[in-house]
Structure formats: C-alpha cells, structure tokens
C-alpha cells in the first residue's frame, strides 16, 4: 500500500498518471514522472510518498482537486481518495476499483472499459463520456455517484452501468448505444439521439420530444430510428 500526500497547495494543475502498479515499488513510485503545470517533476518532489505492506493499493490523502489523470488505464488494484478528486480519474481504466470519498471533478471514468468507480460526494460533468471526437464512450464497468452529478452523463455509452443516487444535470445518455444509466433524483434533458440501452429515472425529468410512449416505458429516439428505453422508476 502506498500513501501519498501533497507537500504544498498546488497553484496550477498536476498531471499524475499513476496506477496501483507503482504501489509495490517505493523507489519507482518516488521517481515516477508527473507534470506540475509545464514542469516535469518526480512524484516525490510534489508529494510525500510512504509505503506500508505490499498490497496493490494507493491511498491519496488530502486535497487532490488539482491533481488530474489518477488511475488512467489502470488494470487492477485499488485507489482510495480521502478528499476531493480532480478531473479524468479512471479514464480508459480496464479493471480495479477507485473510491473517491469527497467530491470529484469532470471526466470521471471517461471511455472506461471495466472496473468500478465510487464517488461518495458529488461529481461534476462528463461522466463516462468519450473524449472529444471519439465515437464510443464508456464500454464497460460501473460508476456510482452517491451525491449529485452535473451535465453530460454516459454520452455515446456502449455498455456498462452508471448510477447517480442524487440529482443530475442535462444531457443524460445522449447518443447512447447500450448499457444502463440510473438517476434516482431529478434531472434535465434525457435521451437525445439515443440508439439503444436503457435509462431509468426516479425524479422529475425532461424527455426529448422524439420518444414513443408505450404501456410502461418510452422508446426512442425516433429521429435516429433508436430503440433506447427510458423508464420511470416507481417506489
């Protein structure tokens, strides 16, 4: 297990593409290259790094809201953030688990293929989305936001599951091609250009006016001959 704490309050963003793979080798972890603004630095120059035991776990203690790209493309192991997290956590991840105990920034689990991300606080925008220009968003795995979420959730999602326990913003499941999105609270516009997959909503929401109403669900988006399902959750 590796425990990492920031040495200073960061004035600009830090890009640290660390994965649990570095947790077993302290020397390698200390010399791991990160970027502080435009400066190339080692992890140990910006953070206090301690090692306890050999498990593939990284614990981030303190405020990490300006530290980006943690767990990019991780395969296994676990990352626990005891505080707020920055953007792009778990982007492209294929396995393992990320637990964020505070709030998270944008792009959580972007284009992820497997594994699990749990945010105990709120998350901002673009959850499980594709990066600009790419044709497929989240391809597998699970994201749980226990608080509220922002705009753009599961855009172009192919497979996997996103659950928001609180409220969410606009553009839920835009151009979705598969998978499941569940929003327990209220949210904004849902299902634009949806092709397949399912969205379940517990609160009040606004459906794009291109869905057919059947006995128990809405099916659309008819503009793109979609067969996506929007279901209203009942207690």
């Amino acid at each position, binding site marked *: 297990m590796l425990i990492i704490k920031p040495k200073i309050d960061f004035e600009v963003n830090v890009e640290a593409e660390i994965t649990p793979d570095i947790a077993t080798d302290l020397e390698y972890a200390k010399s791991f290259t990160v970027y502080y603004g435009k400066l190339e630095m080692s992890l140990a120059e910006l953070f206090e790094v301690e090692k306890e035991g050999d498990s593939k776990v990284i614990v981030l203690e303190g405020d990490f809201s300006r530290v980006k790209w943690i767990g990019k493309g991780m395969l296994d192991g676990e990352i626990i953030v005891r505080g707020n997290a920055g953007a792009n956590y778990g982007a492209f991840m294929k396995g393992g688990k990320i637990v964020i105990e505070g709030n998270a920034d944008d792009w959580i689990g972007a284009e992820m293929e497997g594994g699990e991300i749990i945010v105990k606080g709120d998350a901002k925008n673009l959850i499980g989305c594709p*990066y*600009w*220009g*790419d044709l497929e968003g989240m391809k597998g795995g699970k994201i749980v936001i226990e608080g509220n979420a922002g705009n753009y959730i599961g855009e172009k999602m192919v497979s996997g599951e996103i659950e928001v326990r609180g409220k969410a913003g606009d553009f839920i499941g835009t151009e979705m091609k598969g998978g499941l999105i569940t929003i327990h609270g209220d949210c904004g516009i849902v299902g634009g250009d949806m092709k397949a997959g399912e969205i379940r909503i517990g609160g009040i929401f606004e459906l794009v006016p291109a869905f057919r109403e059947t006995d128990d669900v809405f099916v659309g988006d008819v503009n793109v001959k979609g067969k996506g399902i929007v279901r209203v959750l009942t207690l």
Partner: protein
Amino acid sequence: MILVKNGHVIDPVNGINEEMDLFIKNGRISSEFKINEKECEVIDAKGKLVVAGAIDIHAHIAARKINSGRAMRPEEFRRVRQKTGKFRAAVGRTLLTAPAIGYEYVKMGYTTAIEPATPSLYTLHTHEELDSIPIIDKAALPLFGNWHLVFKFIAENDIEKLASFISWVLEKMKGYGVKVVNPGGVEAWMYGSNAHSIDDLVPYYDVSVRDIITGLIKANEMLDLPHSIHIHCNNLGEPGNYETTVDTMKLANGIRNNRRQVLHVTHVQFNAFSGSGWKDMGSGTEEIIKLVNKSDNITIDMGQVIFGHATTMTADGPFQFDLHKLLKNKWINLDVELETGTGVVPLIYRPSSPVHSVMWAIALELGLLVNPDKNVISTDYPNGGPFDRYPYIMTLLLSRKYREKEMERAHKYLQRAANLPSIDIERTLEDIVKMTRSSPARILGMHNKGHLGEGADADVVVYDINPAEFNPDKYREIEKALSSALFTIKGGTVVVKNGKIAGDIWGRTMWVDATLRTTAEIIEPDLEEYFNYYTVNRENYGVEERWMRRAERIEVG
C-alpha cells in the same frame, strides 16, 4: 557547399545507377570536378543509396478540406510526433498539423508535395496553409470541373475563352495546374442527382461530362501548361466504376504533347472496382492497366489504401454524402457556391473487411503492372491513409514476401476478387525511384526536380540501403531505411540527419503564369457578368504574390 561522396546514385533520367560523387553548390547540383574538400561539408555515403528528393503528386496537405477535417476530428491530435524544442511541435495521426506535414515528408526523403484541390474562392486560405508547412516545396491545383463559367465556355464551344479563363484563374489564384473532380457530378448533385457516365448532362447547361473533360484537355494543351489536367473521375468508390475510368481515359485519344501526358488520372484505385454491387465487388484493373501501358498520353497515380485510420476528403460532394450514409460516420459538407463542393468523412480501413482488402490489392496491382514511367506512388493523403506510410507501399512493391505476409492479414475474399495473389513481380529500386521521383517530376513538368543532373535542385536523399547487396526478403530493414533517411538535403541545406530533423527552412510555392499566351479581354464581359452576381467582389478575389512567403513564378509563353 556539400559533397556527397562515394554513394550509389540511382538517377533514371540521366541513366545513372553506379557509385559516384555529387557536388552541391548554391542550392543546385553542380558538375564542377575540381573540388576543395576543405570548403565543403562532406557526407560519406559509401555503400548507401543516393537519390533525388521525392515528389508527392497528390496529397491534400492544405486548403479548406483538411482544416475542416481537423476541426471535426479532435481525436486525431492525440498522437505527438515531436515535442517543441529547437523545432516546432508536430502532432496528428492521419490529419497532421502543418509543421508535422513538412517534417514527416522530409524525414522519409520527400521534398515536394502538391495540394491537388483548392477551390478558388478559398485559395487565399490554401496559401496561408502552404506557407505554414516548413521545408518542402509545394504547389496548388485550383478546381475547374464544376465551375459555372467553365460550363458556359464549353457550351459555347469556345476553347480559346476557356484557355483564357484558365490562365486568368491560375494567375489570380497562384495555382499550378487544372484539377477536375467528378466533372459535372458535383453541380448535378446540387439538383439531387449525380453524373454516372461520361454522357450525363449538367442540369441547365447543354454540356456533357465528355464535353467538359475534352474541352479542358484542349484548353490546357492550347496553353501548354507544365502539367496536364489532373482528373478525379466520376463514379468514384462505386462498384463497376472501372468502365467510367476507361471511358474517361479514352477521351485523351488523338491529343498529344511531346513533353508529357495530356491526362493524369489520379488515385485510380478508387476508380478501378468491378462488379455490380458491394457483394460482388472486385478488381477492375485489367483493362485500365492495358490502356495506360499502351497509351503514351495518359499517366496515373495509385491511391493506395493503408489498413488503419484515414480521413476521406474530396471535392466530390455526392461521393462523400454516399459514404456518410454507408458508414453512418460523422460528415462535413462544404458548398463552394458556383465553383465546386467538398465533403469530409472519417474512415477506418480494416483488413477484416472484404471491400477494404480488395481496395488494398487493387492499388498494388496498379503499382506492380503499370509501367513505372507512367505511374506514381500516392495514398491520396488522407483518403487512403497517412502519407508517412509511403515506405510501406514501396516495400510492398519491392518485396513479394512482404506482400504475401500482408495478404495473410487481409480478408480471404481478396483471393478470388483480385489478381494480386497471382502476381510475382518485384519492383526494383530503380522502378521505385521512377515512381517517386522522375515520373512525378515529368508529369508535373518540373524539370529541375526528380533527377540529379547538372542544374537540378539540390534535393538529395541518402538512404541506408546498399543497392549492391539489396535483398527484397529483408523487408523490415528496407521499410525502416526508407522511413528515416540518413540525410535529406533540401535546396542545398541539410534538413534531416539520421531520421531526425536537423534544419528548418522555408520551401517555395510554385505557380504558373500563362497570361502571355492569352488575351484577357475576350472573357472580360463574362467575368463582369459573373462578378455582378457573385458573393465576392472581383477586387477581393484572388491572392497576390507579395502575400505569399516564397512564391516562384513559372512563366509559360
């Protein structure tokens, strides 16, 4: 002054295929033989291949299309090719940034590239883009095949007016030659149809595709421009289109020019499909190859596809729309008012696709069977794939073993739909030099390029290949050597050393001035009327030489 010593020089134009020294002075190849080695930068090329800088005859490296493509495909720019240091940063996967284009070309020994389709209305932007590409020499070909004024002059059957118009446009736009894309078809598409054979008529003009092509060939020959007309045929990308291509080539019958061809048919691979639909699509190269080999007034370039990412972009609006419908991928359409159209659609060529595998094979058939004096290597960048894979194409042509290995990767449908599996030919290094240097130079009418005779531009490349011990079975080494030149010298400056950029200079933009051959007065009333109704004032139309970084005027007449 640079002395390239003891290299094995291959220069088909001057009949050289032997060990010799090359002396470079004032940016040109010199035949001086009393050389003081102490004053020169000496490059020892013992046991290495020394050739002229290569020329890409057809690559969409500038103009509005590639920039719209860049805007539509942000995902292209995640590949970093070079970080900022002494030279500029270079990024891009298939759509490269302007610095990346210049750097990647010279790294593999290319020193000249032609932007083959610039709509005149937006040519100012094309020159801005060309001016941002470092090192290489370049030129742009304005589009003529769907221009209302061209239809008008052809309907009047007035070739003299058409010739005057061409020279007026080339002078205004600082263009190099005449490009024709899907003649008549792009205009017809604005009324919901297309041109599917050379006898189709343009709506509201009593002219057929046949009239447009022959009219433009005749006007081009009347002006005797350095380059012939450069045509992208109708029906591109449709099964069975090889017949249209053959019909188009036959239009050059009986018209000749002593210096060069009168018709250059570009990216022929995309126009050499047989079959009646995608289910029975196959290679239709046989007739095309026969026709090109026996005619001395037609040349082609291959239009190889490369498995992997590509971005299709042509001035052929209707084709791009069909492709968008077929692939359901994102699409940009750009209308250029009375002049032409444009579309951009991303695409991935997959070896698992029967159609893509056959396309890959068709281009190789053309590369292997068409006389190298009439054929040029191209990918129609970025339509067939990125140009930085040219070494891959060259190696496939050189090595049968490599082709067989790549064929195993491709779809089995290729075995019965294409002739490639039965072709044993292996191109020689001299053939490759022809297909990348001497042929494009002759086709484009660039007499100072493509060879290493006295007075030629000092564009010299040294590759780590020993022609005396050349073994086509060692294809990995060949591809690697062709991908990163030991030395590239551009205009007398060393710009690449050991595959790394070593010097940053600005190349020239060549344009053709044929106004001496024509009288502008005869088209004055037509231009007057045209600009009365056009969106741009005549005074604001065109590009001035002083706005360009390094313009080189080539005067004919």
